[in-house]
């Protein structure tokens, strides 16, 4: 019995390892090609590792950073991601707290509205959205977070509410007796207990906002503001010339921050997801 379980463990390990390789391979492809000379990134040679002749060093990375306002876009992307995620975490956790602790028809309806918003495809609302955003002046990197807050709220409220139900009400009652007003209870008791969920939601939303291409393209004034995903698109736009090398280099550069965020939060993501399911 013991042995057989071990065998099936091994089989699973192999299957999952193969899957992991399959998932990583495209990234690996981009990585190796970003080090190759432009002419070696062709259809015929795309799978080849860089050789002595085709190795280009960090040249593409340098040109990516130097060219076409990469740093400026990086700044916009960072600004949008940080403000959006911060807003989502703060407002959605508060909202979820209200929904779980005040039980009436209104909050129930509110909750289902949030859940429902997750299943509405973005494509369905995007054109009206871009016009509305223009009218309201939400088309700048400084306030586009309001739009992201709206689109991110569904998942965030859903996850926060799920976890908050598992926090015993008595802990909050104890804090009220100990002298907290509701604001203090929220920030001193509820939020710290919620930390694993905060990190999970934060990482998920950060990955989405950071990588998002469609929404900023539609909403932002494209001549003035480009986020990183928009900028990458521009490497291949222009006059038919596709600068594959710098494009791949900048893709690699943009992956790095989000991978760091993910790795830093990883421990909590697993905890946060499990915490909702298993009580205690």
């Amino acid at each position: 019995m013991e042995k057989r379980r071990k065998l099936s463990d091994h089989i699973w390990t192999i299957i999952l390892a193969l899957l992991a390789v399959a998932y990583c391979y495209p990234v690996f492809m981009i990585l190796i090609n970003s080090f190759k000379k432009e002419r070696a990134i062709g259809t015929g040679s795309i799978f080849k590792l860089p050789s002595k002749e085709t190795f280009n060093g960090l040249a593409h990375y340098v040109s990516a950073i130097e060219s076409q306002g990469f740093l400026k876009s990086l700044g916009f992307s960072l600004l949008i991601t940080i403000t959006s995620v911060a807003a989502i975490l703060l407002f959605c956790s508060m909202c979820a707290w209200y929904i779980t602790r005040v039980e009436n028809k209104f909050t129930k309806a509110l909750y289902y509205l949030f859940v429902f918003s997750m299943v509405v495809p973005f494509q369905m609302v995007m054109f009206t959205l871009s016009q509305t955003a223009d009218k309201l002046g939400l088309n700048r990197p400084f306030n586009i977070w309001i739009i992201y807050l709206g689109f991110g709220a569904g998942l965030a409220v859903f996850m926060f509410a799920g976890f908050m139900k598992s926090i015993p009400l008595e802990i909050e009652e104890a804090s009220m007796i100990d002298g907290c007003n509701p604001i203090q209870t929220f920030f001193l008791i509820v939020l710290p207990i919620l930390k694993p969920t905060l990190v999970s939601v934060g990482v998920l939303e950060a990955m989405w906002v950071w990588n998002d291409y469609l929404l900023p393209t539609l909403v932002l004034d494209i001549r003035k503001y480009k986020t990183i995903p928009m900028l990458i698109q521009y490497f291949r736009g222009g006059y038919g010339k596709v600068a594959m090398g710098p494009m791949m280099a900048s893709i690699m550069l943009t992956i790095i921050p989000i991978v760091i965020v993910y790795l830093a939060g990883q421990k909590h993501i697993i905890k946060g997801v499990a915490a909702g399911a298993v009580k205690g």
Partner: protein
Amino acid sequence: MADIRFEHVVKTYDNGVTVIPDLNLEIKDKEFVVLVGPSGCGKSTTLRMIAGLETISEGELYIGDHVVNDVAPKNRDIAMVFQSYALYPHMTVYKNMAFALELRKTPKAEIDQKVREAARILELEPYLDRKPKALSGGQRQRVALGRAMVRDPEVFLLDEPLSNLDAKLRTEMRSQISSLHKRLATTFVYVTHDQTEAMTMGDRICVMKAGIIQQFDTPQQLYNYPDNVFVAGFIGSPQMNFVEARVDANGSSYDLVFGNDRIRVDKPELARYIGKEVILGIRPEDLHAEEDFIRKAEDACFTAHVKLAEMMGSEIYLYFDILGSQKIARIPSRIPAGVDMDIRLAIDTDKVHVFDKDTEKAICH
């Protein structure tokens, strides 16, 4: 001064159920009062109204001289220990205890001194840097007590604080809480459904049933002079035996007749019940099998057929039937008695309780 006074308090929950119909209760300053009763009778509700965690639908609640119906929990100067302890999971034991004081902007040195003092009394010093999840149930329970202690509250509220502990620890904590009460000299309100806890700890015990106070008195009074059948049955373990009996006149005194047996009871209050049915209550220890007792109480004896005998050490619990329902007698264990034996038992008629069958109120003790 922190006496607590309920004046015609009504509690109706949002779903329209009235849990407490009309509560009048006065708890004196520095008193240890135990609220006891079966599950769902409204003990926690009462306690939570004192804490301010439940609104009061009607009536007034006083703490000291003030009506506190609309006073927020944090302004009532109370501390509460929850059944689930409700420790803050993200804080160390030290922080858990210091939290309330920090909120009140108490000077750091004073907080430190108070927390360490409480930790010393509760033997929590080695665990001050741990998080609650790294503690045993008993240790968590003590942290919950410590958290309440450091605040020097006017009123200490405890909702079944011992029900998650094993029997040995429970006995230990029982005396710890009692001595804590003496040391702090504040008002304690303690909720439990365990009558042993109530009897051992309370200065006065409030027995509740379905939101209504049945009797509010000292443990001795409750045990010896229960006001009604419910209190008589609830307090005392093993339970009091109840037998339905008819009252017959017998010269200057009265006979209580059940089945083929009759016992002579000398209580003038029974005059009004001649010919009527009453409920006779006899505590298991007021049934005697000793020779000399039986000789003296010729007119209060009956024969019991033992169904089951439990040896408890110094005593034996004998189980037998009267009129088809099970009764218990506690007799000294040197008396030879065993299963399937017929044994003569004498009732100590000075200590019997008689209750009205309709109102279930006590007629005489």
